[in-house]
């Protein structure tokens, strides 16, 4: 039996995103476990795991965010196939290698089979690079990775019964990275598989930078010396501090540049639109559009 588990803080989001996806993917005997908890995702996911672990017939536990919508009808078959290797502990559809911190996207992303659906600015979809295989870049592949994006994770029964999210690390940030490190430290593999999802999410990637920074530091400290590449870096602490401070300020400058360039492009588009709607031809043909709209309304 493949179980689905979600921690719900906003029921309307769950109803619009996760629930239809679960309905699409689940099998008749699947159990859907939810926990309504506004607190730590580390804790909520542990509660879900405890409940799933009690099922003798558990084949996998799928942990998904309330805003994650699975789109594959044959999702369960893909999960079963991915977990058929007993060495595989956790599977996802977005993952990276060479990851050194909770900013897993700064590693080399190997698979990103999702659509980021946002509501800001009239709404839209941002399609990640391996959503459609025919458009995917040459580095897109399924297979073993260092870590997965936690918005959709399928856990093997062994992991469900033997690994827990580390509740000492905070409320939200880095839970997925730390969990994948624990799974790997326990000798199991972290893998990507060929299933897809829609992530209904705002465009804001780090909503609370200070807690994110705290989690980054805590997790770097926890894994320094335990997992190659994590928490370590070239040079002395002073050299690392100086370089990181410089790169931090360069990254901030890059963000300001992007904002300015966006403002510049929008001003250009608005000028073009203003020129169009102020042109004689546009004003001359206004009655035609009025009639056209009236006809459409009548129909």
């Amino acid at each position: 039996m493949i179980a689905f588990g979600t921690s719900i803080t906003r029921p309307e989001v769950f109803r619009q995103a996760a629930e239809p996806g679960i309905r699409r993917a689940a099998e008749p005997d699947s159990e859907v476990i939810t926990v309504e908890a506004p607190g730590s995702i580390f804790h909520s996911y542990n509660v879900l795991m405890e409940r799933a672990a009690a099922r003798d017939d558990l084949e996998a536990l799928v942990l998904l965010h309330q805003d994650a919508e699975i789109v594959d009808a044959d999702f369960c078959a893909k999960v079963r196939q991915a977990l058929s290797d007993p060495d595989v502990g956790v599977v996802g559809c977005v993952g990276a290698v060479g990851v050194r911190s909770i900013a897993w996207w700064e590693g080399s992303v190997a698979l990103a089979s999702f659509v980021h659906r946002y509501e800001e600015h009239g709404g839209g979809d941002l399609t990640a690079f391996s959503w459609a295989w025919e458009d995917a870049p040459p580095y897109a592949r399924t297979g073993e990775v260092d870590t997965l994006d936690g918005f959709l994770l399928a856990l093997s029964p062994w992991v469900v019964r033997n690994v827990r999210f580390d509740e000492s690390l905070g409320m939200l940030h880095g839970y997925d990275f730390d969990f994948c490190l624990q799974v790997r430290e326990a000798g199991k593999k972290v893998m990507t598989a060929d299933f897809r999802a829609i992530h209904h999410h705002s465009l804001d990637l780090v909503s609370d930078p200070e807690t994110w920074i705290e989690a980054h530091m805590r997790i770097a400290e926890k894994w320094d010396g335990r997992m190659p590449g994590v928490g370590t870096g070239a040079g002395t602490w002073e050299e690392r501090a100086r370089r990181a401070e410089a790169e931090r300020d360069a990254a901030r400058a890059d963000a300001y540049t992007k904002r300015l360039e966006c403002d510049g492009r929008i001003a250009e588009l608005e000028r073009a639109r203003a020129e169009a709607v102020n042109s004689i031809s546009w004003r001359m043909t206004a009655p035609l559009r009025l009639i056209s709209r009236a006809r459409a309304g009548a129909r």
Partner: protein
Amino acid sequence: MIAFACPVMDTESYRRYAEPGIRLAAEPESELFALAATGGLARSYNLLLEQTAGHEELEALVLVHPHAEITDPDFCRKVREALEDPGVGVVGAIGATGVRNIAWWEGEVRAGHVRHRYTDFGGGELEAFSWTQPQPAPGEVECVDGLLLVLSPEVARSIRFDESLPLGHGVDFDFCVQVRAAGYRVAVADFHLTQHRALELLEDDSLWVEAHIRLGKKWEGRMPGVPKEDVDWKTRARRAEAERESARAFAHANLLGADARVLAAERALEEVTSTASWRATGPLRWLNKLRAERRSRAAS
């Protein structure tokens, strides 16, 4: 006498931006020193200081970046007013307090009327460093932007730019720290100025990062007004590495937000240009454009 000096990196920029601004601002007795840029920005500025600082009647030396255009006919009066206090060594058009490194805009920014004119995306104009929501000038700051540096005669004669900095990144920050370390104050005045440059804030990230590191080392524990403290480098490194990743995530998010905003504006334009009436009247607009071009050619 208020002297103006500009290192000419490319003649066209100088002719278009710096020179008209200097002509607007200068007084009849003002002297203008325009020298071909040599070496880096610091070397060129030092050369200009050597050429001008010895002038006995010097009231102030105005170092104008070639891409800066002074748009203030009242400029010289404001210079004299700002340098009335002998404790002031450098005056600029935009600067900040709470500055700890070459990213001076991360401090609390104060500015005169500084505009940013760009040619990207069909061109346009913005308030310079608009995202920092600058406080109005005048006021004391810790560092000013090197776009425009007004130096008191004492500073022009006694302090020099650090020529060891790669490609001149951070020379303005370093110069202001030197000035403050020498006991002078740094201020911004309500100058009117336009900077002509691309929207991109940093043209070469990697060199800028090296300059940041070098100046961090140079001034560690010696920054005027910053109490010296024992540094726990490990904690500082951990925090900086986390803040760097957070800043990168913020930049990614900005890019996503920018894409979404641009998409919305493109949709709004398409709503007009995809209508049947717009398409049907295309030939009229084409004829109109042709006629306008002919008229313009005939006129020239």
